[in-house]
């Protein structure tokens, strides 16, 4: 039987406010445990939460970025459950009247298709603290610095039909929240994380199958792997005649498997009710429009502009605009060297590969845009070959110096002098009569041998285009 997967994602994005959603505690990452948790965050009796205006504005900004309805009157509810990382005994969240209602985003797929994914809602809520299970025997350590950090939970419609679509959607939401500056998007630090609802149905069937919810997914790679292993698990069950149980499953990235956390029977009864400590949040059309006006150029619009302004294809433009920092870097480099294709190739090739290898983002890039442009300018004016440029880039990365001074001090200038190159070509022909004979007899592969000999002599500095031309001329005509 042919199966079709149905996926919906719930993405939690931490809002980049300075203080918490209901208290004046700092939200800075990495502080000593419990030094940023005050009476409100600890849930001490008699405290009163007061809503952070910036958190509200950021949520509204997200809503305007995805063309969603904004809840002009939204209400906070209490979601009751007992877990030590939430000492109040409830999470303050929004159920019936969220700040952001129905909206949508477009995702681009590898085959060139664009698909619209519905966003059911996005609501404001507080994050919980952190439990540390490993360090204490028989006890769990609780750090409440994160408790009360503002989040928006972005809930998609069950619109995705493949892992590729799910990853593309997660990436698009990541781009949007970082472009509009409401979330730092740092997945290692947990600022952006997601749960996935996954179910299978026979292809062509209208009705959804039973879904499971996968928790604890904190990278794009893991969302792909977690959903894939869950698809396989569900198909195995269904094809052997079993039924999928509705449950919450935890993705274990070390074992690359999902395992049951709690079944529907153990599902919590959260007993939601409106939080009596917080009054309804009311926003006016004018306030919404004022926030909408602060929206920057969004990823989709930037992609279209990159395609027309820099003559890039959709894939290149999409890759370069996925991150605002990368897009800005590209634009700075391109303007300095006036060659968008060269800039795009190098940024998506060498630069991105190096970033990935060292697990860095553009923010922490050791080579500035103008330094990088300096390197590309020397490729463009034939001072160095692309191959040598890779070595220069490596040195720039490690030492932070300018391309020109590296080229100068290491003597890496490309040899473009036709006279000098011709002498080398003559010598290589004279020194290797056997190879010349074989080449003339039809073994054209040997061209690489001749070029290689000259590159070896010049440590790669000979202009490869010119050598090829000269060799062809000499070997063909003599």
């Amino acid at each position: 039987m042919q199966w079709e997967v149905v996926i919906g994602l719930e993405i939690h994005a931490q809002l980049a406010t300075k203080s918490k959603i209901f208290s004046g505690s700092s939200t800075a990452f990495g502080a000593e445990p419990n030094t940023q948790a005050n009476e409100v965050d600890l849930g001490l009796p008699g405290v009163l939460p007061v809503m952070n205006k910036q958190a509200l504005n950021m949520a509204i900004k997200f809503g305007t970025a995805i063309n969603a309805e904004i809840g002009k009157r939204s209400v906070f509810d209490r979601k009751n459950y007992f877990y030590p990382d939430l000492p109040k005994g409830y999470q303050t969240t929004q159920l019936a009247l969220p700040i952001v209602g129905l909206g949508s985003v477009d995702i681009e797929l590898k085959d060139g298709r664009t698909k619209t994914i519905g966003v059911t809602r996005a609501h404001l809520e507080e994050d919980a603290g952190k439990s540390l299970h490993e360090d204490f025997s028989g006890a769990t350590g609780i750090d409440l610095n994160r408790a009360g950090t503002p989040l928006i939970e972005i809930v998609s419609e069950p619109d995705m039909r493949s892992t590729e679509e799910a990853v593309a959607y997660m990436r698009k939401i990541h781009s949007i929240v970082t472009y509009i500056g409401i979330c730092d998007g740092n997945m290692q630090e947990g600022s952006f994380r997601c749960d996935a609802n996954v179910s299978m149905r026979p292809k062509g069937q209208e009705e959804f199958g039973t879904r499971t919810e996968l928790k604890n997914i904190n990278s794009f790679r893991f969302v792909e792997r977690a959903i894939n292993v869950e698809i396989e698990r569900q198909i195995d069950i269904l094809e052997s005649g079993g039924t999928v149980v509705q449950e919450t499953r935890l993705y274990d990235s070390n074992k690359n498997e999902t395992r049951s956390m709690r079944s529907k029977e153990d599902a919590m009864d959260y007993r939601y009710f409106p939080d009596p400590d917080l009054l309804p949040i009311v926003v006016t059309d004018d306030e919404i429009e004022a926030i909408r006006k602060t929206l920057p150029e969004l990823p989709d619009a930037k992609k279209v502009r990159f395609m027309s302004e820099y003559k890039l294809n959709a894939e290149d433009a999409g890759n370069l605009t996925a991150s605002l920092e990368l897009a800005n870097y590209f634009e700075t480099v391109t303007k300095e060297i006036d060659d968008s294709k060269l800039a795009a190739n190098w940024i998506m090739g060498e630069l991105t590969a190096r970033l990935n290898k060292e697990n860095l983002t553009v923010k922490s890039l050791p080579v500035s845009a103008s330094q990088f442009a300096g390197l590309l300018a020397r490729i463009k004016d034939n001072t160095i070959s692309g191959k040598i440029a890779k070595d220069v880039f490596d040195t720039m990365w490690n030492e932070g110096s300018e391309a020109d001074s590296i080229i100068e001090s290491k003597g890496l200038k490309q040899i473009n002098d036709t006279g000098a190159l011709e002498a080398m070509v003559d010598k290589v022909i004279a020194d290797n009569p056997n190879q010349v004979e074989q080449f003339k007899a039809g073994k054209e592969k040997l061209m690489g041998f001749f070029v290689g000999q000259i590159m070896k002599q010049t440590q790669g500095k000979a202009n490869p285009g010119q050598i090829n031309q000269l060799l062809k001329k000499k070997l063909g005509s003599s």
Partner: protein
Amino acid sequence: MDKKTVEQIAHLARLDINEKDIPEYVTNLTNILALVEQMNTVATDSVEPMAHPTDAVQRLREDIVTATNQRERFQAVAPQVEKGLYLVPQVIE
């Protein structure tokens, strides 16, 4: 409303209730639910639900860090702390 439901509610709210009080809770809660049932029969289609008894709107605060680190004070009243963490009986995920 029966004994099992009362026990379930008590568990969810982490209330340590006395076995002998359960019949009384059953009676009281049943009466309250009967009142809710009665209220449910009132036609409220034209009434906008309120989230709060007053008609007031939430005041907002500026996004400024005002709290200072008072960990020592807070942890002085905690049953058990170590390395700056609050310790609780082991929670198994």
